[in-house]
């Protein structure tokens, strides 16, 4: 995969969307930022003091998935024997569940949770390491409009209150316009920054 004309900067506290048709390289770019994919040339400067929380697009959670929401979020905790650390971990879990509106749902098996609840659980898990940058990979793709808005309100709140930088990969031009402050538009592996106001539906259909 080749990117051309890839020149951009993402600043602290940005709420930025990566838009463009399928296969235009959005996920690849994100993987490069995270160091999961190598680049052949050019400079990619990532401040590694900034922990990145990545919420992937697909997960295979079926109806028999055994863990409940709290246990699922807990997977991202580090191993500890220290009672003190354990206590602070419990506090952290409590705080994150509250922040993501999952406190009342924490005992629900994740396999039985709705699409929106699942996305919140994924988000909560990614927030556990206190990331400075949050990457959402099509997190709203299969959700109802109302649930989408709920999730995005939550993300917007985190962006506002905690100065969390958010990179939102999406196919949804309405959400892009409503929530994000900047938009990076991919097309045929070329990238341009567009004004959020100018984002239109056909930007997601061209090329590919």
């Amino acid at each position: 995969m080749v990117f051309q004309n890839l020149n951009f900067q993402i600043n602290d506290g940005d709420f930025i969307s990566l838009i463009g048709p399928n296969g235009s390289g959005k996920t690849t770019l994100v993987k490069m930022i995270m160091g999961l994919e190598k680049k052949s040339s050019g400079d990619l400067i990532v401040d590694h003091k900034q922990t990145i929380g990545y919420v992937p697009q697909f997960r295979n959670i079926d109806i028999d998935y055994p863990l409940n929401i709290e246990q699922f979020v807990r997977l991202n905790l580090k191993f500890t024997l220290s009672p003190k650390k354990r206590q602070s971990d419990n506090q952290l879990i409590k705080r994150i569940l509250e922040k993501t509106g999952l406190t009342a749902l924490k005992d629900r098996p994740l396999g039985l949770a709705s699409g929106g609840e699942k996305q919140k659980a994924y988000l909560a898990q990614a927030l556990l390491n206190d990331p400075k940058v949050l990457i959402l990979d099509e997190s709203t793709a299969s959700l109802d409009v109302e649930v989408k808005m709920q999730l995005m309100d939550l993300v917007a709140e985190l962006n506002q209150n905690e100065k969390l930088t958010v990179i939102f990969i999406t196919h949804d031009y309405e959400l892009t316009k409503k929530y994000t402050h900047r938009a990076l538009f991919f097309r045929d592996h070329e990238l341009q920054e567009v004004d959020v106001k100018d984002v239109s539906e056909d930007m997601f259909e061209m090329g590919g």
Partner: protein
Amino acid sequence: MFEYEFMREAFIASTFIAITAGLVGVFVVSRNMSFLSHTLSEIGFAGASFGILVGISPLAGMIIFTLISSVAVGSLSSESSRREASISAISSLFIGLGILFLSLSSESSSYATNILFGSIVGISSKEVNQLMILALFVIFVFIIFYKPLSFDSFDHIGARAAGLKTRLLSVAFLVTLALSVSIGAQIVGSLLVFVLLTLPGATAKYLVHSVPKLIMVSVGLSLAGVWLGLYLAFVTNWPVTFFISAFEVIAYFLGLSYKNWKLNH
């Protein structure tokens, strides 16, 4: 029944077998490796008969074969349909090899049935010690890798996103799986060792909702199965494997019914 030494040995051995199988089984199920554990037990059969043929112990033969093949499988294509087909091809080859090795060696056919179907009388105190050491090693590896392995097994995509070394975890897990197959086959037999490696873990999934609880329930079901099996085998003189598999299968379907009942209420 404990006045007989072979029963004492069998109980100690199966206790360790049940603990490792119950523990490993939780992860076999969550990693969708039930089929692979079945195949590994068939490869283990070939290993055991190879061991007999060349004059090393069946257990050593099993460990060699299962370890090599589990690491080989770890590097197989990750595309699941292809992987399934490759695994079933390999498994047929190894059953054939196992039969060949046995017929080439001069051992009697009762030896073959012991390897295949398990036996409660076949185990010596030296073998019990070997089993215990192997079982403790497996448990030790699990304690070390517990957190990241849980993350990777119950949310592979999340674990990768969080930057865990999932490759390394996968190899570590396959090694413990290979050892568990070899250990378990000594009593349950290589044909049915995967019963202990899959069913208790699968049943637990219907009953509880955290990793530690899954492990506890799985180990509990596994222990209950082998203890009850040994007792009934002693009383009736029927094969122990029959009772163990019957118990685990019944427990599985009860668990499944419970889950369905709960979904509707």
